[in-house]
């Protein structure tokens, strides 16, 4: 299998794009991640990740509308590409497979329970 070049933060951002689609842009993604992780997420970081993802072909982008809060500047709306979806699915499958392979007794011993 091809080595997936998807970093952890990138993966989260990519997921966020998918989750917020079709209204995913940096500001809301950052906000969303802040809410989810309870840690400050800088817009710059999100932007950098989005750019990288776009360069790698996981995302597409297009200009959206402008709003007064943005000082009249347009949003850049990101949408996930088919390739992005496939990569996400692959990563998820790998994770799931690994999860599945953990024996139930081990699971309960380390305090992890699927229930």
């Amino acid at each position, binding site marked *: 299998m091809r080595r997936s070049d998807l970093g952890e933060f990138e993966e989260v951002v990519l997921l966020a794009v998918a989750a917020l689609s079709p209204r995913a*842009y*940096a*500001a809301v993604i*950052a*906000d969303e991640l802040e809410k989810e992780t309870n840690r*400050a997420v*800088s*817009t*710059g*970081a999100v*932007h*950098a990740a989005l*750019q*990288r993802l776009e360069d790698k072909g996981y995302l597409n982008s297009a200009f959206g509308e*402008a*709003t*007064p*809060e*943005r*000082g*009249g*500047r*347009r*949003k*850049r709306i990101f949408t996930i590409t088919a390739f992005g979806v496939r990569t996400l699915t692959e990563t998820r499958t790998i994770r799931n497979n690994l999860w599945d392979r953990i024996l139930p007794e081990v699971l309960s011993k380390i305090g992890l329970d699927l229930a």
Partner: protein
Amino acid sequence: MATKQTTPNTPTPPRWLNRIAMRICAPHIRETVMGDLHERYALRVKRFGLKKANYFYIREVLGLVRPSIVTRQNSSPPSLAFFNLDMLANYFKTATRNLSKNTFFTTLNVFGLALGMSLNLLFVAMIVFMYQFDNFHPNKEHIYRVITHVRDRHENPSFASVPISAAQLLKANFTGVEEVVRIHQSLPRDVRYADIKIPLNGYFVDAAYLSMFNFPLLQGSAATSLANPNTMVITEAAATRIFGKKNPMGELLSIEPYGEVMVTGVAKNMPKNSHLRTEALVSFATLASHHGASFTDDEKNWNNFYNSYAYLQLSDNLSPSTIEAFLNGIAKEKYTKPEFQASFELQRFDKIVPGPELDNDMGNEWSYQEILLMGVLPMIILLAACSNYVSLAISLSLKRMKEIGVRKVMGARKRHIFMQFVMESTIIMLLAVTLSYFFFEIIRGETLSLTTELDWIDLNPTLGTFAGFVTLGILVGFISGIVPALHFIKTGPVLALKGRELQTGTGGRFSLRKLVITLQFILSLGFTFAVLIMGQQYQYSINYDFGFDQEKILNVDLQQADPQLVKNEFGKLSFVPLISMSSHPLGAGKVPGLHVKQVAHSDSIDARTMAIDENFITNMGLHFVLGRNFSKNAGENARWIIINKVFAKKLSPDASGALGQVVILPDKREVRVVGILEDFHYASLQSPIGNFFFEYAPEKFNYANFHLQSTNERHAFLEMQSAWKSIAKGEKFKAEFLEDQIRDSYSFYNQIMKLWGFMGVLAITIACLGLLGTVVFTIKNRVKEVSIRKVMGASSGSLVYLLSKEFIVLLAIAGIFAIPSVYLLMELMLSEAQYYHAPIGAFEIVISLAFVLSLGLTTVFSQTMKAANSNPVDNLRLE
């Protein structure tokens, strides 16, 4: 970039932070990132309040500093730099394509510019040569010359020389002055070797001269050669001239009044690029031992600024201003009168040539002013050639408006268009310089042989010269590129693309093109007219009635021969009727002036004089008004003078009263006026006839003069030569006809004619090339019009008239302007240059007008007739 529209209820982050954030963001993502920042800020204000939001905002801005946000995109937008390599390559390509497309105009331009530049290359070579003056002395950074500024409330002259006392003062040890070399220019121009008088240039120098300056010795030692009185060093060339193959070391030369001087060293010939260049160096000790200590130490010397020079070599830690201060302190003591003050300055050795204009310089010195003056005429010619280029470039530019329009629409800024055209003209200029180099090689030798005054110049091109040429090309290219470039810059892209310029540009009553043509023809006419006037003056001068006979008068240079012996020997020849003696040839060049006094008056009178014998007046056919000639008695003659009418009128109101008056000569001799002569031109026509007298002084005789009454001149000369051999001490027989001597004294007219004639040829060629270019261009633009007219029935004649009319008017205007202004200018110049000059005649005006205008008209008609006689179908069938 979108504009900010801030409604009152949307909070905005602090502006300074915004600015920083904008700076951090790369332009291509700025909009989105800033938008996101603002949106989140607004959200945070709502959620946490202004203060907290601001705090977060700072964190956000700091968080922007990461590669993917900071990094600018390198490919777009395109760089707008002035020197963008890609664009330069593009300009070069466009330029070469454009030049090769218009082969005719390019050739025209390059040829014209090359002609115009040829003189400038000469000028540049000269400047380069001058800037290499005295660059071969190893310690040149430490050498200074003391110069003097005199303030006398009139002329305030500055001297290259310095009172000998000041030099002496510095010589007497000033700490930090490593070496002082005094130079004195009082060495006579002639020396005697084995009783033969030989001209020799030289001056007196201190012994340290040879170690301060880099003039290596071939024989003798630098330390001792000039240490003792009556010793000298001469150059190799001078040694060969005087001694032939003999070893010059230890030979004695007799120099009046210093006696015998021994050659104690032979120096390599001094290079041309030194203002110290000379042939002989005599030890300063010679001067000191001959004149005694008073020569250097006398207080009175402080008021004599002439002929004495001082060169200093300073140590590293002594600044020249210290010495200046010291000298000027002394000067305050010495020059106490407020109406006569002098101050001293230390002139850096490398600032001597080229340097400021100084009186009484070492001879081979050239000042900025002189260099500038030399450059004026070449510059005018070059200006003419460049204006051709500029006007043609603007004419042709109409065809390139579309190209410029497209460039502008594609985002070219003014500076790019500017760069493009400057580059194009630079390419042309460099081509022209290359071609011009060949012209330069041709005229170089010719120019240097024009006068002997240019002997000191060495114009063999060096690396520096070539660098100078290229610099000239680039400089001229840049300057002449400015005009066409500005022309393009000011046209808006829309207008350029529409081609509106194309329709309006050709017409117009007053255009640059017309102005250029007119000015160039004014210049050409001016030169032609001036050359003709000079020729006329020359003819006038040599055919002038000087008031004496000059036909067939032969002047034999006596050299060292005894006048009486010459008289005896030459008297035996059959073709020599009467021999007379004189100190100068009559009517050629200058005669010496002096001040005489009348017994009764204390005022002295300016007069000029010549020494003659009793036969001279008869030989020259001079007429007596009153009185008589010198007699056969030499003792009596010495107390007599014969004066001209002007002098007689000066001596007494009615001229006849002057006869018998006593005049006191500068050497205190009292002489009596015995004869008064009709006025005649004793000197050249440059100065008016003034007070003049003949004296009888056999010791001053330089020439024997007689009528050569022989039909076979060759034979006569051979006989004279054999007669000469018996008299002379090995010198060559030298004789010249008076007519030739007079002619030679006006040879400067010939030199001017040659120089101006050459410039005239250049100016005319350039003007005609420019005219040709413009005519061809105009006709090209009107070819359809002409063809249609022809089809409609216009005759060839009327078409030629239609096309030529405009240019004929321009030529006429040029004539109207040129003739009167050159007339006035030359009238002014001639009255300065020559007192007795010919009035400028109508003949010269007509000839120069006819010559220049016919060339101009030939140029115009050759093209217009071709256009008028062409088959209209050829030009119309493609429509």
